[in-house]
């Protein structure tokens, strides 16, 4: 107990990658722009397999954007992340699917830059750009695994994690935090006391915070209970994703795939029914439209 | 022998003495530096003085109010405050700090809760809660201030004051103080070589202080049309058709609120459709309500005299001097005293909203935990018994009066229309009609002699709810009035007592009219009837002359 990886993005990189293999700021020969210090990006190897890594550094401040520190993803960070993903796609463009390099996201971020300049210039665009780049990388067959080691909170988790093929998280004894808003905040908004919300969340994981609840909803593929297992687990998932893609089942992974997973785990059953009903209803009027 | 002679100028000598002590604080002319303001107050105010502070409905001598809280309690204490409005936290802080102990006032607004708390804790003694005209009257009878802390836009070094757009209460406050040998101190936004116009002559002013910040004005009369509901639109349609058109109401006052804002915004649409332009709503005693802009621009309104100003309306008002009262400098001259007098005697109708109406028709904005006061509504929301001029509306309302003959025989006498707009239930199911007013509880809790009632049932002529209009003045007994109230009280505890056959009879007699009786189509009662749907539309109507405060700028 007491063991935590909170704020230790760089340490996590060294635990996950093969020793000494990480080269920061480089995607092969390409050098990333020297901005966004909160985003640690580079290339290394994981059990001998070349991977690209994108992680958060919670120990630095962005000197140009004062609200960006402690792992916050600011505009520079997000665009730098997007650039790295697009470069990776470009560099592997002509490779067969099984050789598209995997991308490992190491997630420990509390949010996006909450500032005036951020709103003026579009923080939403920056993280939106990163999300699109990840979705595109998946389309090209790059396996993406997100490994939550600390905080995966709301909008920042949306951009740095939720577009991955598979999402893994250290279990809650490592003080991981996955939520949109802590339960206290939810209690304020819904005008309920925390005790009754806690009680309710036992039967309905839909608003509670924590890795366990996300797991039930299909929001996570696997919980990792030992830091030393991160490397093995990530490697195993990369292999699985390659296999899925090779079999033409890429929809079993990623956000859509996690929707199916949610249903299997009994967490988001209504979602499935809604989609089926919409399909059926459209089928009845399809003639008029196509 | 001087010592034995009766002195007839002790007030004057006292005044001279206080001013002499303050002379070292004067920089030039009548100007005192802001840094010496607290010292000045400590010098010229003595324990047990009656002190007035503006304290208006809108503009606030906020700097002087803060300074008064900072005086040494050893030197200044037991002040008796006399002020129109208790609006700022500092207005009550001065009691918390035991500098003042008693207050006579008219309106409490945002401080209503804290005031009630202070009364309960014995921190404050209330002399009386007045209407504006009562308080202004008593300034000249038995509540004459020793020191007046006033506020103006600008001053020159001789002390001439420009009160400009928000003149409000300043003339009455200064006149009462100055001519009874009191001391007048004015905070101003700036000191200039020449004021744009002289609202208060310099020799009525003793000290002028340039405040570090411009005085605070609350945009109290701005209602964003975006927040007007369908049910308010319905009531507004009923008022226009069932009252304004019915009586040919030409001169009137609108209380502030979304209900009356809806009426203003329906004039150019629904009013136009009913062919009422030029027949109703020509003369107002009213602040420059932004929601009246579309009606003004469409040529409905001939004249508006104002109690005060309204943030953002200065340029618009200046450019419409045919309608508003404008000085030679092109800015509005408002005056609460004159406008209240006009509102009491000069108009045919008052209409406003309230919090609770009881089964007899008495209404109040008080709750057990709030002392909100009265402001000016009771003076306009009553039948002015001293009125002698007649008008079509006044005569008609008098003719319909069900009790008049039993009191004065067959002599014709008119009657002011006093209309209350009431939603049967407000948000969170708070009922608009109650068996007993909360004002009773407040009277007990705050040790008031009588429950604070805004408008007494016998002054009320009409109640308008979504259910219909009750023409109460037509009733010939209290029993009948109560039945009429029940008929429009909807599903409240009062309304649930309604007896269908009774209501049917009242509808037949024209004492109760439902929207259906009035020929109003419920399905048309929605926001699309509004001439402006948001503040931006009002700006557009004004040709860009209305400049709303930032908090209303949703674009």
């Amino acid at each position, binding site marked *: 107990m007491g063991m935590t990886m909170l704020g230790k993005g760089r340490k996590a990189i060294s635990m996950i990658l093969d020793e000494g293999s990480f080269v920061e700021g480089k995607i092969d020969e390409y050098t990333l722009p020297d901005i966004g210090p909160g985003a640690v990006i580079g290339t290394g190897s994981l059990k001998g397999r070349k991977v690209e890594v994108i992680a958060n550094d919670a120990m630095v401040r962005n000197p140009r954007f004062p609200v960006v520190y402690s792992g916050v993803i600011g505009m520079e960070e997000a665009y730098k992340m997007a650039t790295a993903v697009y470069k990776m796609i470009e560099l592997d463009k002509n490779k067969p699917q099984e050789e598209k390099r995997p991308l490992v996201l190491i997630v420990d971020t509390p949010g996006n830059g909450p500032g005036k300049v951020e709103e003026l210039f579009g923080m939403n665009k920056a993280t939106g750009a990163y999300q699109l780049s990840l979705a595109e990388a998946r389309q090209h067959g790059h396996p993406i695994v997100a490994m939550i080691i600390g905080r995966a909170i709301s909008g920042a988790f949306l951009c740095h994690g939720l577009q991955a093929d598979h999402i893994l998280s250290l279990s809650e004894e490592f003080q991981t935090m996955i939520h949109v808003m802590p339960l206290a905040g939810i209690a304020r908004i819904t005008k*309920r006391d925390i005790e009754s919300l806690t009680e309710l969340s036992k039967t309905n994981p839909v608003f509670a915070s924590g890795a366990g609840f996300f797991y039930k909803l299909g929001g996570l593929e696997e919980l990792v209970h030992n830091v030393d297992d991160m490397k093995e687990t990530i490697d195993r998932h990369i292999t699985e994703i390659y296999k899925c893609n090779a079999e033409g089942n890429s929809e079993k992974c990623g956000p859509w795939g996690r929707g199916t997973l949610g249903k299997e785990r009994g967490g988001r059953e209504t979602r499935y029914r809604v989609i089926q009903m919409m399909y059926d209803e459209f089928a009845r009027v399809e003639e008029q439209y196509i | 022998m001087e010592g034995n002679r009766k002195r007839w100028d002790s007030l004057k000598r006292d005044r001279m003495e206080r001013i002499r002590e303050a002379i070292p604080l004067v920089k030039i002319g009548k100007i005192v530096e802001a840094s010496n303001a607290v010292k000045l107050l400590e010098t010229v105010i003595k324990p047990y003085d009656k002190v007035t502070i503006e304290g208006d409905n809108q503009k606030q001598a906020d700097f002087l109010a803060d300074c008064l809280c900072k005086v040494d309690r050893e030197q200044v204490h037991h002040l008796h405050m006399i002020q129109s409005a208790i609006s700022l936290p500092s207005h009550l802080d001065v009691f918390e700090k035991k500098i003042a102990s008693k207050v006579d006032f008219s309106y409490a607004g945002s401080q209503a809760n804290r005031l009630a708390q202070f009364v309960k804790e014995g921190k404050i003694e209330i002399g009386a809660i007045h209407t504006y005209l009562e308080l202004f009257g008593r300034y000249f009878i038995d509540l004459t201030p020793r020191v007046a802390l006033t506020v103006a836009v600008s001053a020159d070094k001789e002390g001439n004051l420009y009160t400009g757009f928000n003149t409000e209460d300043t003339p009455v406050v200064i006149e009462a103080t100055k001519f009874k040998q009191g001391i007048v101190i004015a905070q101003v936004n700036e000191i200039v070589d020449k004021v744009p116009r002289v609202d208060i002559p310099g020799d009525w002013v003793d000290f002028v202080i340039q405040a570090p910040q411009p005085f605070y004005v609350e945009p109290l009369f701005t209602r964003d049309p975006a927040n007007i*509901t*369908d*049910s308010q639109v*319905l009531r507004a349609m009923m008022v226009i058709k069932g009252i304004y058109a019915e009586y040919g109401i030409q001169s009137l006052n609108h209380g502030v609120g979304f209900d009356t804002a809806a009426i203003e915004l329906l004039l150019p649409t629904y009013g136009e459709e009913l062919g009422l332009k030029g027949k109703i709503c020509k003369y107002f005693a009213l602040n420059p309500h932004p929601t009246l802009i579309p009606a003004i621009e469409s040529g409905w309104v001939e004249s508006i005299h104002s109690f005060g100003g309204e943030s953002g309306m200065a340029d618009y008002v200046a450019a419409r001097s045919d309608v508003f009262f404008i000085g030679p400098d092109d800015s509005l001259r408002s005056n609460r005293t004159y406008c209240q007098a006009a509102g009491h005697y000069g108009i045919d109708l008052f209409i406003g909203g309230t919090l609770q109406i009881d089964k007899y028709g008495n209404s109040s904005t008080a709750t057990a935990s709030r002392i909100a006061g009265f402001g000016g509504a009771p003076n306009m929301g009553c039948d002015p018994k001293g009125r002698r001029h007649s008008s079509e509306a006044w005569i008609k309302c008098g003719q319909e009066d069900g009790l008049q003959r039993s009191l004065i025989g067959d002599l014709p006498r008119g009657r002011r229309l006093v209309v209350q707009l009431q*939603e*049967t*239930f*407000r*948000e*969170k*199911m708070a009922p608009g009609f109650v068996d007993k007013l909360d004002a009773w509880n407040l009277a007990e809790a705050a040790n008031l002699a009588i429950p604070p009632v805004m408008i007494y049932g016998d002054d009320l002529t009409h109640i308008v*709810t*979504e*259910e219909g209009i009750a023409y109460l003045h037509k009733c010939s007994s209290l029993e009948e009035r109560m039945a009429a109230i029940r008929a429009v009280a*909807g*599903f409240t505890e009062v309304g*649930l007592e309604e007896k269908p056959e009774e209501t049917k009879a009242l509808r037949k007699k024209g004492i109760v009219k439902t929207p259906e009786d009035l020929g109003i189509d*419920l*399905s048309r*009662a929605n926001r699309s009837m509004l001439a402006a749907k948001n503040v931006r539309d009002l700006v557009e109507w004004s040709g860009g002359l209305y400049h709303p405060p930032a908090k209303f700028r949703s674009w």
Partner: protein
Amino acid sequence: MALQELNFSFKPEKNFTSFTPEWFHSGVVGSGDMEVLMERRKQDGRVTVKVVTPVTGFDQVWEKVLGKFVADTKIGNLHMEINDNNATPFIVHMRLKQALFEAKGDVES
């Protein structure tokens, strides 16, 4: 504090008119407002209503408001489902009348 469900059933007026559209929806569940779904239902003229609301303690008021609607409009063979979000009794009354009016217009146009 869960949402509560109220169910009512009203006898129609003697000279009632049956609700004819298969279904009609009106309103938005905004704060202080409600939506209603009206469905044609053959049930000996009865009007049945299901109300889902976060507000407690107003069951009788609901009954009165809905009863008045049935009496005023002389409608029958109708099932209504109301999702309420703190609408006042008058708003309920007005929305129902507006909805019925629109529903008729829908059929005519």
